[in-house]
């Protein structure tokens, strides 16, 4: 039944199609109606162009505004760490003198000529060191070059090292020894 109906439908459409024609007037109408913008050779309808612009204007403006805001925010975030300048050149703190390169151990110092480290240390730090006993050096023995393992023994070993006769002459060493 379906095959019969399908054949009937095809036949119906074929016969009906023979009666439907697009006359020349209709063709002219179609060409004229679709003329603006067709082939891209003719001047497009200004009204249509305006509508097109209006249709695109809003999304484009919105996108531009969003991009501008995002850009501004990114610039602010990017620049905010930069203006915070590094701390202005302050006088060297005492802590700065406590972080010199490791000095030789007392035992080595006994065999070497005294203070070759003057070339390694900054002059200002060195000039301040002998003026007064450096409290940092007394508190943190590793700052003077002693290995950390010797730290607990520092007060008692100080006289020993003084016996060796090299470091004990310094005023700091004497202070420790008195304690």
């Amino acid at each position: 039944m379906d095959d019969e109906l399908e054949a009937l439908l095809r036949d119906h459409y074929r016969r009906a199609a023979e009666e439907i024609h697009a006359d020349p007037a209709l063709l002219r109408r179609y060409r004229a109606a679709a003329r603006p913008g067709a082939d891209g050779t003719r001047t497009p309808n200004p009204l249509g162009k305006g509508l097109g612009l209006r249709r695109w204007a809003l999304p484009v403006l919105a996108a531009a505004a969003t991009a501008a805001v995002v850009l501004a925010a990114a610039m602010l975030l990017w620049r905010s760490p930069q203006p915070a300048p590094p701390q202005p050149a302050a006088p060297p703190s005492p802590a700065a003198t406590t972080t010199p390169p490791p000095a030789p151990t007392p035992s080595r110092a006994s065999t070497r000529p005294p203070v070759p480290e003057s070339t390694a240390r900054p002059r200002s730090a060195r000039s301040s060191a002998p003026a007064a006993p450096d409290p940092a050096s007394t508190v943190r023995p590793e700052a003077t070059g002693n290995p950390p393992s010797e730290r607990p023994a520092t007060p008692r070993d100080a006289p020993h090292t003084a016996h060796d006769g090299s470091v004990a002459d310094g005023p700091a060493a004497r202070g420790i020894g008195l304690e």
Partner: protein
Amino acid sequence: MSALSTGEVRGGDVTTFEEFVTATAGPLLRTAVFLVYDRHVAEDLVQLAYERVARRWRRLASGNPEAYARKIIVNLAIDERRRRRDLPVGSVTEVERLAGTASAGPFCGPAGAADGELDEALRALPAKQRAVLVLRYWCDLSEQDIAETLGISRGTVKSHAARAMAALREHMTADKPRPAAKGDGAHGR
């Protein structure tokens, strides 16, 4: 026949929009008439489709502009039917349309008795079911192409086609004289 009769025009076959209109006006007009069963409305739908194709001609020229135009016509026809259904009864437009259709008929020519029955049955179909039949049996499109044209799934195309065929079958059998009915009645007695 329909693909041949509609004379599918590919982008490479025509170079200008004018040629495209000349080559496709007839087939597209027939498709539109089969969809809306109103010559004047069909002409307007085809014109709208051409206007839209013209706007995108540069992009469509290398592809399949006729398929695009047909898609526009089919969807406009479905919308048109919906719009017409929403028109208030007795409005001038509706009266004029009905008068024009009644006087001239959609195909502007005499139709046989069987064609008249089939026409009546096809007119009574919902727009989408009719569109599926037109695309299938006039345009010779595959189910997949019909689905793409209408923007629906293949399953929906199948169900539309099945319902349309069932409705047509029912209409045709209802209009046929039933010689066996008396016999059945005698058996019943």
